[in-house]
């Protein structure tokens, strides 16, 4: 029975998760595009010389957070930069991309550190919410998302570190991950032998399970800030 549960998490659920992620974001976009525009402008002044660039700057560098809380700002920037590297890293686990090798590295870019930074900042975000006033304004969604991320990061980091330092028997070679992940784009998706044979398999399954859950919740949670932030920042200057 465990075999089929593992298989479900590793293959069908991954399709479901990405389907929900992209379908959900598409749905969100449709809802927004079908909602009426307003006739005036909601701008705040000064709008800045180039509103679109200003909106991008406010989105990527988050000066509003920097002004008020430097520690929080540091963790936001650290978290998001690491998350970007994480996405790149996972693409590299599908196949080699010459583009990312501009900075020559062994798979994947920033590995090891990425996990540590993500775990530290997720814990910071989580513990912050145990205190007032964040405690009072938080809703279960806020904790659940951070918890899912924490779990996915912990298992992910463990997999990475294990293979880096060749912890006896636990290291799964990059080739095995590539065989598994690239098979999603073929007609025969499967978990590679190298992964199944490892005593580490259960860790991989847990990592994929929590990541799947996160991806499925993404479009239906505050995570849509990653998509809509630019629009809202632009409204402020339009």
């Amino acid at each position: 029975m465990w075999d089929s549960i593992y298989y479900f998490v590793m293959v069908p659920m991954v399709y479901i998760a990405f389907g929900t992620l992209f379908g959900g974001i598409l749905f969100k976009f449709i809802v927004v595009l079908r909602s009426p525009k307003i006739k005036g402008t909601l701008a705040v002044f000064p709008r800045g010389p180039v509103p679109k660039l200003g909106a991008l700057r406010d989105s990527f560098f988050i000066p509003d957070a920097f002004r008020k809380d430097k520690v929080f700002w540091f963790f936001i920037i650290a978290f998001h930069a690491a998350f970007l590297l994480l996405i790149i890293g996972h693409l590299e686990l599908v196949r080699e991309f010459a583009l990312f090798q501009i900075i020559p590295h062994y798979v994947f870019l920033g590995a090891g550190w990425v996990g540590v930074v993500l775990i530290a900042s997720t814990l910071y975000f989580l513990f912050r919410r145990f205190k007032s006033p964040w405690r009072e304004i938080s809703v279960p969604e806020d904790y659940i998302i951070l918890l899912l991320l924490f779990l996915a990061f912990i298992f992910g980091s463990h997999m990475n570190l294990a293979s880096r330092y060749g912890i006896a028997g636990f290291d799964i070679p990059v080739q095995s991950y590539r065989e598994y992940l690239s098979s999603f784009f073929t007609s025969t998706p499967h978990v590679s032998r190298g992964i199944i044979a490892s005593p580490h398999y259960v860790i991989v399954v847990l990592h994929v399970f929590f990541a799947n859950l996160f991806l499925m919740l993404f479009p239906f949670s505050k995570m849509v800030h990653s998509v809509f932030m630019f629009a809202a920042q632009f409204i402020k200057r339009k």
Partner: protein
Amino acid sequence: MDNEKRKELIGLMKTRLTRPMRYYLDLCTRCGLCYDTCHVFYGIPKKEYSPVGRAEVVRRIFKKYLRPSGKLFPFWGDSKEIDDHSMDELLDAAFSCTACRRCMVHCPFAIDTPFLLGIAKSLLIGNESAPDELSILADGAVEKGKSIDEFKDGFREVIKDLEKEVAVKLGGVPPEGLIPMDKAGADILFVGLSGAHSIVHPAVILNSAGANWTLSWFEAVNFGAFLGDPRKMDFIANRIINEAKALGVKEVVIVECGTAYRIPKYLMGPQPFKVSSIVEVIHRFLSEGKIKLNEKTITDPVTYHDPCQLGRNGGVYEEPREILSALAADFRDMTPNRKYNWCCGGGGGLVALDNEEFRIKSGKAKYDQIVATGAKIVVSACENCIFQLDTIKAGYSMDVEMKSLTELVAENLA
């Protein structure tokens, strides 16, 4: 509350779901950066008066009825039912917010809290629990728009008296025609308020500058906007817009009233005329040499309070400062100012409600700011603000004078 009513209210909520509203409903990560940026929270530190605290009251109800995830998993986002208790929460959230949008400039996602509270106001209107004072004032303005001809004769009589006042202030010129009305082809349509001073001082300045102007039949203030009823807001604003179009004026000049300026300027879409604040017009007259001031005649320290709707939400920051720097020998800015200025607590129609004690408490931030400047004269360019500043003055027994910029200019014309 019965189910029929609830359905009606959900319907009303749907009418508010514009694009920006969708973003603001989805975006908040409850990061808390806005938590202490509201002047009401500064004076009364309760979660309910933090911007995110207010917005969440709306979001939770929205999730419960109009978002699939909230319907299926109410615990996920703490969804809330529409009932008498939540209506009370909405009332407290919406009608204690002055719509100053100070929270918006501190939010990493630029969430416009008062825009979001528009949902709360719609629900309250639907439930007939919005403040009566605002409903009555808004209905009165709508009624006046529908039957203006009946008001005209009475208004002309009042204006005749005001013309005499203007004549005295202009040094005893003949009063006839000093406040022109219904003048087709005038360059400027000036829109005042119900108080005599809101017409007399601008009339002194406009006449001194030799402007080709005419006075509007209507008051600039928009109680439809304060009430949060978009149809009434549009109707009230359109009274003036249609008047301006019929007279063929080039510019509509709004008296010292922030909201009355922002609505035709930024919230009604493009118009065939320019919309200016009287402050911008005074500044223009000065730089064109059409009027002159007795420079540096005010020796007491002077500070300026940025009305939120004129400054942060209207973009008029420098003109009043330049005028004041010319008039006063010792002009001092408050800290923070301009975009980050603290609201005085009078906006959003709150000064029309019976809530003086609340407004004194929520004016604490402004009080502290004024004291820190050491100024003896506080100038502002919004009728609401001045009224509230006077409330703060009385509430904290302050030894300062609250002054309107237009009045100060009219008194100090060279």
